């Protein structure tokens, strides 16, 4: 896999089918549906249990807006990921361009996915700092690899595109 900064985006080329599939999984992985643990993490309350009024207002007024914001980010990413759904041979390497204008949506969707996967699998700090674990061992190991791969991509977007975006706005 090669990552190259373009004038208005980030080009990820030589994506093998495995990594391309992991990228395609971002929108689905970001969803907290059917997972109380992921729901609890993505929509955590703004205060402790004694703050019942605050928590009730939050649930009524803020959570729907957060849901809308998160959905908007994953839809943007899903649209960009259409680039990976061409007519090429199944095992051919792919190229994906992340436009700089979508950098915020990518950071948000990748974060949703990482947090949801970590919550579903109950990953702790020790799991997440184990950089030498093989992704082949089990479904849980594959999920951990997914979290780390998405984190790697987040780091790249932060380093390459956020400077670009902020620079272009001044």
């Amino acid at each position, binding site marked *: 896999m090669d990552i190259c900064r373009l004038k208005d985006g980030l080009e990820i080329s030589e994506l093998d089918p495995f990594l391309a599939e992991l990228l395609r999984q971002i929108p689905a992985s970001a969803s907290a549906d059917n997972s109380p643990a992921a729901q609890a993490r993505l929509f955590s*309350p*703004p205060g402790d249990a004694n*703050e019942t009024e605050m928590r009730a207002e939050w649930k*009524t007024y803020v959570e729907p807006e957060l849901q809308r914001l998160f959905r908007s980010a994953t839809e943007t990413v899903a649209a960009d990921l259409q680039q990976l759904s061409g007519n090429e041979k199944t095992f051919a390497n792919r190229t994906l361009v992340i436009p700089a204008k979508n950098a915020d949506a990518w950071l948000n969707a990748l*974060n949703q996915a990482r*947090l949801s996967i970590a919550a579903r699998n109950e990953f702790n700090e020790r799991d997440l700092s184990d950089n030498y674990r093989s992704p082949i061992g089990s479904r849980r190991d594959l999920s951990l690899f997914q979290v780390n791969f998405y984190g790697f991509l987040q780091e790249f977007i932060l380093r390459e595109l956020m400077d670009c975006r902020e620079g272009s706005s001044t």
Partner: protein
Amino acid sequence: MICQVGLARLEMAPRRSQFEILAQGISAGVAEPTIEKSTESEQELDLPWQVIVHNDPVNLMTYVTMVFQRVFGYPREKAERHMLEVHQQGRSIVWTGVRERAELYVQQLHGYLLLATLEKVN
């Protein structure tokens, strides 16, 4: 600036509808840094509230730093200091002030998926 518009509207809003009004600014507010502006009002005399960010092993350190810079308009050094405090001590009080603005900040931080809470200063 959408955040400033939201805050201006807050001053006229009844207490129970604060979240409803603030929620309107979440998505747009996420992408824009908030410019802190000192004001002299009765609200300033209220007991202050604090915005606390809690440690989360998943969120990247660079990401958290960027969020602090954007939401609070902090310089990089200050944002990194708070990020490290969260990382090393489990939590950091990232802002203290009137409740309405603290609520807005907490919502913005949740928009970035940080674990943030609001507490009254004892």
